[in-house]
């Protein structure tokens, strides 16, 4: 039994709880941390901070554009603002505001986004943004992080306070297995969960658990996959990626996002530029989501454990 069997889920907690807890910790440690929220404090668990530091919590209402501008102004004056709303309203709704007032202006704003991806479930496609990673990674100077579980989200929410510059931190709504507690979190540093030689599996966010289960399944069939967690999509740990694919000769990317613009495309770009090998995407293929239960939706849109298994098998054949 290899050491990587340590990654077991004993409990399920939503990543947004990790954010709420991490934000509170960050605020306790750093008096410059303030929070802005667009009428979703409960959903993002920002009420923890609001309760303990009411004077450091700014309710902005349903006015996301104004929230981003205000965060820029606060950062200008030396504060470290965390903004909070759902992923769609954190990115697509306010892209130009982030672009000009935050990214181009180099402001130290932490854009924190819950309810990303299909797994938000019943609210449906208007809320299920599958393009936010792509949106944010196109902005020069933007750091893009998509942690995998409660523990990693909490660590990330704390780490970004010490990082100088704009950050997009993306997390989700549903309860999800917690299994990375023992892993160190460092912005920009991929984490190898398992060594392997047959195929490199790169996974981000909720999909790390799906990938983990897939790798376990195929291990029983004698396929020795390398599993790497890309929690930071930008700056991308291209070294870790290239090292792995040079060994395995093929790759699978797993993300709760459109193929276009996501982690898979970042990897494809790296491969095309440095080391062209076959890549399979486990991602939504140019469709809007819909209402449903989280796992039903992962199934329907090709992001189930079985889909990861299939992608791994397929890409190995393509080598």
């Amino acid at each position: 039994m290899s050491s990587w069997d340590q990654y077991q889920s004993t409990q399920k907690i939503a990543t947004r709880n990790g954010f709420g807890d991490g934000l509170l910790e960050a605020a306790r440690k750093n008096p410059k941390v303030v929070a802005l929220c667009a009428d979703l404090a409960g959903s993002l668990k920002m009420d923890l901070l609001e309760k303990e530091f009411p004077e450091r919590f700014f309710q902005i209402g349903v006015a996301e554009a104004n929230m981003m501008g205000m965060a820029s102004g606060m950062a200008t004056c030396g504060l470290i603002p965390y903004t909070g709303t759902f992923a769609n309203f954190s990115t697509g709704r306010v892209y130009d505001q982030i672009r000009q007032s935050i990214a181009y202006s180099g402001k130290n704003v932490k854009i924190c986004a819950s309810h990303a991806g299909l797994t938000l479930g019943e609210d449906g496609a208007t809320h299920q943004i599958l393009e936010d990673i792509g949106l944010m990674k196109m902005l020069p100077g933007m750091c893009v992080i998509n942690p995998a579980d409660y523990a990693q989200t909490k660590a990330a929410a704390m780490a970004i306070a010490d990082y100088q510059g704009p950050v997009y931190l993306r997390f989700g709504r549903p309860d999800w297995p917690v299994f990375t507690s023992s892993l160190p979190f460092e912005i920009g540093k991929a984490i190898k969960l398992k060594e392997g030689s047959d195929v490199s599996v790169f996974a981000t966010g909720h999909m790390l658990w799906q990938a983990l289960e897939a790798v376990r399944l195929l291990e029983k069939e004698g396929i020795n996959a390398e599993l790497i967690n890309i929690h930071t999509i930008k700056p991308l740990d291209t070294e870790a990626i290239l090292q792995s694919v040079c060994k395995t000769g093929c790759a699978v990317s797993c993300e709760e996002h459109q193929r276009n613009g996501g982690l898979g495309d970042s990897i494809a770009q790296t491969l095309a530029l440095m080391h062209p090998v076959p890549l399979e995407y486990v991602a939504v293929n140019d469709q809007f989501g819909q209402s449903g239960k989280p796992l039903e939706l992962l199934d329907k849109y090709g992001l189930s454990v079985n889909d990861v298994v299939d992608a791994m098998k397929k890409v190995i054949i393509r080598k």
Partner: protein
Amino acid sequence: MTKFAKMNSPISKRFVKVESRMLNQALFTVYRHPGQGAIIFCRLDRFRLYTFALSNMKTQPELEKIASQIRRDIIRQTWSAKSGHPGGSLGCADMMTSLFFNHLRFTLPFKMEGKDEDVFVLSNGHISPLFYSVLARSGFFPVNELATFRMINSRLQGHPATHEHLPGVRVATGSLGQGLSVALGMALAKRFSGDEHLVYCLTGDGELQEGQNWEAIMAAAHYKADRLIAIVDWNGQQIDGPNDKIISLGDLEAKWLSFGWKVLHANGNSMKEIDETLTLAGAMTGKGMPIVILMKTIMGFGVDFMMGTNKWHGVAPNDEQARLALEQLAETLGDYQI
């Protein structure tokens, strides 16, 4: 049969032709008016015109019965989906009943373009369980489809969508603040093509914090979009608390007035008042200014433990809560099957 009297009241011009057909060698033309029901004109020849029948407008008790059933539908949809937004839905149930059963001039089967009919946009898309119930109960799609609310592969998405072709929905909403712009576009398109029908748009009050609304409000006045009727669900609540605690709307009437709109007020949970106000709003159209109804409602109206609090904005009742809620709401038209 009575002789046709020339209609010269200011309301008269809102009679709209629904259909014309030959029957018993006479040309029957059906006109409807929301405030005064249907009129069927019977023209026997070039010179003789008769009023054949008059009025099928729903009475207040009739509307209240429908609204009670619609409230049941809201509770049952959110309960069985284990998610959704009962609070705002219940609060707006009276207005939506009045609008769809007495005022909105629509044709079935549903046609997307909405030519020669009134159209409605739900900007605060999260109150979809109300919208779906009203649509189903007024014949847009089978009532039993309400059982699929928020389920996978359903046409009844968490927020209204056109993507699955649900009859009655003309644009997706859910991301707040966009509906009024769409409604304004429809109003100008109707004017462009000589269609004098009305465009209604319901928005939340918290939703008015979104700047895009003020863009649309400013543009509507500029364009004198006088067949556009906006309705604000002024329940004073939003997700995280009362509007006044979140970002206060201040003097809301003064805001709309200063943006050049005609402002009406109504208690949205008095069927009589909201029904009359919708008639009045209709009668005031075509006079150079867009119209807004600032409709005071109580979030969760109709279910005692849901009333007047933001707590039920977006939380579904559990089994016990649903049972208690349904006890307070008479089944008047028959529950759909789950």
